[in-house]
């Protein structure tokens, strides 16, 4: 079966194609060369349409314990967003924390073909994969979380060599079936268990004497040395704290040139100026990002309305709990490994702080020069649900729309921003970089995010529309692995995406201390901790795609 998409305007930044008219040929789920015999089985006329690879959300909380706590906790939020069963689709619910089936359908309907869960606790990875397994159409994967786990902190306190830490990181990525490594409030989640209420970059964990800076240094090196393409994914110290921009600048400086991805940077870009002692640090942060080519960021844009914040950072979530809306929240300590906090939140446009958060996110988007190093996220659902992406794209692409919105916000906040004077409007090509080519490169997906020969045929076709929100919320067609899954913004076929993983090599000698650790301190056996490939394949619907390692990897 050979399918031809004829005459579309191609936006494929991985191949420097910016609005170039080309035909695309698809066979067996892949993009192929024009057939030598010219035989086409089916042709779709897409002349004048905008063609991009399927979009990739490189940071979205779609699976795992804290997301499911959020779901169970918020029946009133679901009741406002119920989805009936159809002949084709399962029923579902959810605005801020949608059910897995609804999540897959909504992503596909917006032209997204992959989403990556950024906070997979090793001990909860099995659950994260179960939930992602029940998320249709899109590909998925997870970044496994270390940095407050006692095994690592014990190694660091004992001054283990980097080789041993590399081994542990590689072992964990393998057996949690992950595609990258995440750290959340490095060492801080552990510190909270010892009743420390904050942990600055150079402050010591009371028990281990280890600082967040040490942890970032060790883990970012490990990721680089074992050849995992995705740089260490960092949720830094002091999330949400006024003045945390200095911590962020120090973190960037402290990376010492090693690749590092700073996630939801908006929440880490706050100054303390002005009457409210809360100001934008976006300009300084953007300048630092522009200067340090080893740094990538995603924004974690906030948008106004009800949502829920779900994070591994229970130290900061506990501090934020008095702001819960509605007034209910959960914090957990988890298995000498991690924690989580779930706090519902309503961002209000007439709140000075919330309005400024909105502005800081947009300032960051507009002041970071290189679209290959900044990514479009709302840190779903923490800043806003992922379904608001088309609206966010419009804010980036349409200055007058942006400034109209700005003029309705808290008046004091408006005085505290230069946003209105920023003229930049993102182009379609830049959107394609941020949400496709750049995201695939960042996550380390060799065969996704581009439209080259041999790529997976994950393709989104839009009708050009100067109202970018309308354009991006309802693509004409979405193809997943060559199959048309969406037509006119409606799901027409259910497929089940693959799970992307990396398999860095490790020396099996690491299992000796791990075995002792599990036997002595844990309530689970090491053998039962490991997630087999069969568990990902599960009932036959799942599959595993092993992505290549970078040079420097020993495989």
């Amino acid at each position, binding site marked *: 079966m050979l399918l031809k998409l004829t005459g579309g305007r191609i936006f494929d930044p991985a191949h420097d194609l910016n609005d170039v008219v080309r035909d695309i040929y698809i066979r067996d789920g892949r993009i192929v060369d024009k057939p030598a015999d010219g035989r086409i089985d089916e042709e779709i006329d897409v002349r004048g349409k905008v063609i991009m690879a399927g979009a990739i959300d490189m940071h979205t909380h779609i699976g795992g314990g804290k997301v499911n706590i959020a779901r169970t906790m918020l029946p009133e939020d679901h009741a406002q967003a119920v989805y009936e069963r159809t002949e084709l689709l399962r029923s579902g619910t959810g605005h801020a924390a949608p059910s897995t089936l609804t999540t897959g359908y909504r992503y596909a309907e917006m032209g997204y073909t992959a989403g990556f869960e950024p906070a997979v606790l090793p001990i909860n990875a099995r659950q994260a994969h179960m939930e992602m397994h029940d998320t249709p159409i899109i590909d998925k994967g997870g970044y496994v979380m270390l940095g407050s786990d006692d095994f690592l902190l014990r190694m660091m306190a004992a001054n283990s060599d980097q080789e041993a830490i590399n081994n542990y990181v590689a072992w964990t990525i393998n057996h949690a079936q992950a595609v990258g490594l995440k750290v959340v409030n490095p060492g801080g989640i552990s510190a909270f*268990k010892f009743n420390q209420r904050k942990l600055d970059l150079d402050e010591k964990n009371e028990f281990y004497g280890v600082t967040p800076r040490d942890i970032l240094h060790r883990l970012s090196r490990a990721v680089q040395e074992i050849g995992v393409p995705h740089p260490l994914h960092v949720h830094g110290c002091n999330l949400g704290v006024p003045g945390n921009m200095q911590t962020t600048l120090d973190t960037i400086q402290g990376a010492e040139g090693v690749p590092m991805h700073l996630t939801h940077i908006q929440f880490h870009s706050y100054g303390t100026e002005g009457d409210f002692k809360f100001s934008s640090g976006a300009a300084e942060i953007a300048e630092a990002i522009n200067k340090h080519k080893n740094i990538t960021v995603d924004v974690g844009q906030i948008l106004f309305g009800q949502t829920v914040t779900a994070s591994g950072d229970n130290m900061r979530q506990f501090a934020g709990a008095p702001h819960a809306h509605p007034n209910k929240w959960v914090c957990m300590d988890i298995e000498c490994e991690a924690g989580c906090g779930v706090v519902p939140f309503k961002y209000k446009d007439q709140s000075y702080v919330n309005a400024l958060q909105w502005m800081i996110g947009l300032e960051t988007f507009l002041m970071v020069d290189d679209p290959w190093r900044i990514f479009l996220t709302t840190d779903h659902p923490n800043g806003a649900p992922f379904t608001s992406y088309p609206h966010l794209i419009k804010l980036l692409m349409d200055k007058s729309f942006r400034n109209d919105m700005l003029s309705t916000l808290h008046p004091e906040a408006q005085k505290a921003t230069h946003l209105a004077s920023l003229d930049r409007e993102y182009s379609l090509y830049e959107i394609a970089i941020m949400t496709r080519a750049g995201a695939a490169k960042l996550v380390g997906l060799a065969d996704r995010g581009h439209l080259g020969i041999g790529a997976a045929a994950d393709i989104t076709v839009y009708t050009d529309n100067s109202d970018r929100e309308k354009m991006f919320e309802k693509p004409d067609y979405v193809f997943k692995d060559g199959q048309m899954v969406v037509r006119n913004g409606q799901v027409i076929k259910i497929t089940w995406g693959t799970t992307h993983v990396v398999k860095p090599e490790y020396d099996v000698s690491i299992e000796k201390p791990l075995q002792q650790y599990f036997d002595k301190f844990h309530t689970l056996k090491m053998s039962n901790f490991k997630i087999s490939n069969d568990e990902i394949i599960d009932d036959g619907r799942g599959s595993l795609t092993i992505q290549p390692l970078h040079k420097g990897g020993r495989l």
Partner: protein
Amino acid sequence: MTENSTATVWHEVASPFCGIASDDLTIEVNGNNVKVLENGDAVTRPGFETPISDIQPRINGKEVTLEQAVSHIAELLINSKQPLIAGLGTDLNGARAAMALADKTGATIDSYYSPAAFRNILVLQDTGYMTTTLTEVRNRVDVLLVVGTDIESTFPRFFERMVWNKESMFGQEIESREIIYLGKKPSGDASTSPNGKKAQVIACDNVDLPEVVSVLRALLKGKQIQAETVAGLAVSELQALAEKLKAAKYSVVTWSAGQLDFDHAEATIQNVCEMIKEINATTRSNGLPLGGKEGDTTVNAVASWQSGYPMRTTFNRRFPDYDPFLNDGRRILADGESDVVIWVSSFNTAVTPPESSASTIVLGRSGMQFKSEPEVYIPVGVPGIDHEGRTFRTDSVVSVPLRKLRDSGLPSVFEVLSAVEQAL
């Protein structure tokens, strides 16, 4: 059972029969006979060792093939005005299949263990909580407050595994751990320390817990209490307990909602949970709800991620519709609001469907005895014995893989319910 050359010994086997899901069991399998060799207890031994008796499905007491049973179920569902899928003692994939079938048939879904589970879920949905997990308890607990629960009667190995372990990761003197029972007295000595230190007991009746817990919370908040006694307890005794919780570095307050069997126990659990939050203003303290055996945690987790809601959800309007009171399976059956019930109980032969006017279909563990024969009975395999599976522990964070230990040929709940869905 006699030893012979065909016996297989399995190590590091996880138990789905208890909410703490101990995974250090050694099990011997000889044909269809299963024997727990090491680390068994009063819950896991019968769980694993209950023999297989019947293997053939029945319709109205007459043996039929699995295909006949499946098409009979499909027929009943097609003609049903309001099906109920209940019991739900099953694993991950059984729960998935049940959710898919409920969605397709407009069924209501509820678990046998919901009356207990909802005492906690209602708190989560109203005010939330701070909780911890088993490995944290094992390494950090310094004061364990047990509220209204005789832990060892339902979690026989809790103290051995979580409290009286040999060593804490943080250099804590294990013997210094303090155990305090508030409410029920322990039924045995599991809570006694290795050196013989007995747990402190502040005894009261369960029905007095609402009042006692309210006073304890008030004392922790520094409120003045005029009364000198509450439910027969000296307020000074509760004051001393409050001081201990304030002085503790990592206290854990535990309860088993299944044992807090009094009206509106959720309000008392909520008071406990709010008290824990308040203790955290100055030191660390966490809740540890104990429960979750036989798929209890699993079915609520799967229902939540697939529909947004835990158990007690109906699909009769073609979308998930949650109501923790109206969709109570027991109430529905008692009030005759369902005409077909699919009762799933693959772990426990004693968990049988209540008498009702509904046509009853049972997917049950082999050996189940009925007061009145159900319309359809299919003996199904036990997850973790007859087929692979996964189950969640009480903390709803850790899930364990369950292994296939023998080849009994019994179908899984997933296989049966998926076949029913296909047959519709």
